[in-house]
């Protein structure tokens, strides 16, 4: 973008052509009593050096997972990020590349997206993936809309155990599209979807049933039971999955999912105070033309050499206009690239190790925490990397005091209607020492 200077002379010239003398004359229609008098209470200009110092001071007030030992999760996780990712992602060819409309000049970016799609398919056990979505929650909302279009139905069944913020995003997407939402209740004891209370739900009208795996409380849902119900009623099974959990769990493809979405933050993305990360979206060959977003395909050029192009674009709004499958016309290419590098660097075994360590460390910490008098486990279903703990404690206040000890505590679930619950997350990045120190600090604060 060009820099357009504005000199005093130019101002005068413009004012003269308007028949005015000074800038204030432009506002003469505003009554004097409505005009602000005096100087605005904002600080004066700073020199470059002063400005840098000022912002450093402000930034220094932030505390993040590089300075604190974090047990916070609920959607953004403190996983280890190999440093090679930032070096490759930071290359100009990737960092400055614009959306790859012209395959002739964007083979590198197109190939990186193609590799990403291949990995998402392998991870989810699905047949087709798009080039990525904005985030997991909006990917889920798009999955619901896709299910409605594919089944010509206008109702979706969501689990009460879905992340409350994802519920809010889905509601935002669906409420003006005449799609209704029905919830499956949570079982008080297991903490997962109450399978004994499914009979009364409107399965025959449902475009899809959504399962979040693991659910908001970190618990593993019984997918098979829900799959049987929805497929019997000719609706679709939509799974919202944590990609790290797929290192150990049976893939959604094997479980019979029709659409699989998730948030990619845990795949080599910095938490960055909440973003940006990316969402992933995968489906079956049968439903590929209903899928939102861009897709990169492999083909051959005029000389028969392997080449990559954006494909199946007739689903998209620049061609299909108001009948497009979605109004998403972009993707999170750089974040998806980071995930691709992450998965490549770890390899199959390394990725499995990440999942295994999350499971083991979370399970160890859960066991240690439950030894503290006054704390108990609210739910009986198995957990993976996150788990809730019950205690008649002011968890918000406890978290403030944990900060003084260098710990980022779990998420107090009071604002989601569970005043005595807190949700902890333990990734492979935590050491046994950190876990032990945290448990003894928390024990001290509670007693």
């Amino acid at each position: 973008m060009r820099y357009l200077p504005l000199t005093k002379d130019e101002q005068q010239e413009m004012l003269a052509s308007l028949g005015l003398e000074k800038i204030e004359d432009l506002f003469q229609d505003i009554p004097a009593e409505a005009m602000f008098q005096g100087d605005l209470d904002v600080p004066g200009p700073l020199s470059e050096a002063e400005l840098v110092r000022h912002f450093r001071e402000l930034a220094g007030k932030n505390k993040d997972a590089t300075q604190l030992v974090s047990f916070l999760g609920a959607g953004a996780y403190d996983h280890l990020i190999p440093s090679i990712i930032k070096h490759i992602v930071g290359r100009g060819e990737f960092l400055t590349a614009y959306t790859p409309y012209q395959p002739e000049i964007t083979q590198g970016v197109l190939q990186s997206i193609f590799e990403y799609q291949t990995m998402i398919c392998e991870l989810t056990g699905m047949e087709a993936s798009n080039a990525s979505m904005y985030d997991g929650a909006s990917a889920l909302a798009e999955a619901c809309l896709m299910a409605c279009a594919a089944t010509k139905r206008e109702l979706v069944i969501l689990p009460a155990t879905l992340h409350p913020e994802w519920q809010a995003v889905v509601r935002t997407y669906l409420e003006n599209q005449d799609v209704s939402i029905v919830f499956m209740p949570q079982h008080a004891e297991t903490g997962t979807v109450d399978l004994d209370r499914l009979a009364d739900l409107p399965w025959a009208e449902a475009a899809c049933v959504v399962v979040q795996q693991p659910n908001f409380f970190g618990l593993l849902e019984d997918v098979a039971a829900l799959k049987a119900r929805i497929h019997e009623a000719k609706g679709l099974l939509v799974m919202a999955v944590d990609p790290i959990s797929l290192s150990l769990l049976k893939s959604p493809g094997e479980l019979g999912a029709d659409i699989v979405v998730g948030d990619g933050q845990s795949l080599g993305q910095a938490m960055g105070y909440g973003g940006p990360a990316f969402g992933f979206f995968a489906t079956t060959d049968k439903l590929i033309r209903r899928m939102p977003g861009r897709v990169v395909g492999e083909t051959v050029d005029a000389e028969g050499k392997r080449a990559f192009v954006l494909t199946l674009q007739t689903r998209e709004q620049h061609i299909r206009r108001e009948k497009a499958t979605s109004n998403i016309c972009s993707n999170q290419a750089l974040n998806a690239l980071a995930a691709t590098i992450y998965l490549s660097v770890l390899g199959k075994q390394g990725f499995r190790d990440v999942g295994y360590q999350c499971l083991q460390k979370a399970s160890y910490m859960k066991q240690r925490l439950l030894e503290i008098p006054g704390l108990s486990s609210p739910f009986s279903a198995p957990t993976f990397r996150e788990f809730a703990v019950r205690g008649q404690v002011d968890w918000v206040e406890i978290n403030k005091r944990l900060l003084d000890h260098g710990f980022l505590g779990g998420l107090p679930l009071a604002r989601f209607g569970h005043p005595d619950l807190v949700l902890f997350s333990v990734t492979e990045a935590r050491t046994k020492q950190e876990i032990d120190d945290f448990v003894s600090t928390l024990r001290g604060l509670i007693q």
Partner: protein
Amino acid sequence: MSEKLLYTKEHEWVLVKGNIVRIGISDYAQNELGDIVFVDLPSVGDWVEEGEGFCALESVKAVSDVYAPVSGKVVAVNEELEDSPELINESPLDKGWIVEIEVEGTPQVGDLMSEQEYAEYLKGV
């Protein structure tokens, strides 16, 4: 058989058999669209309104809607098009038929063009 065909201004053809109306696209339309790679068929049992785009044809050039010349219920779809959309290019008036719609009462097709009228109409497009 082609003499009984009637045509719409949107280049669909219509074949009336009692209260059943079979619909496809004209040879001119398939030629304009180019190679058809996908047909997004409606479902049997769907209700379509006259003038509504009830089916989408995806060609290598574009996606085009097929508009319903009558209102009624879809009673048959050409399922062969799911795997062989090229039938519309190869045999637009016969094997490339798209749907059959059942109308209530007698089909109102008085506004549609005969083959000769359509041929005249094409000279003007």
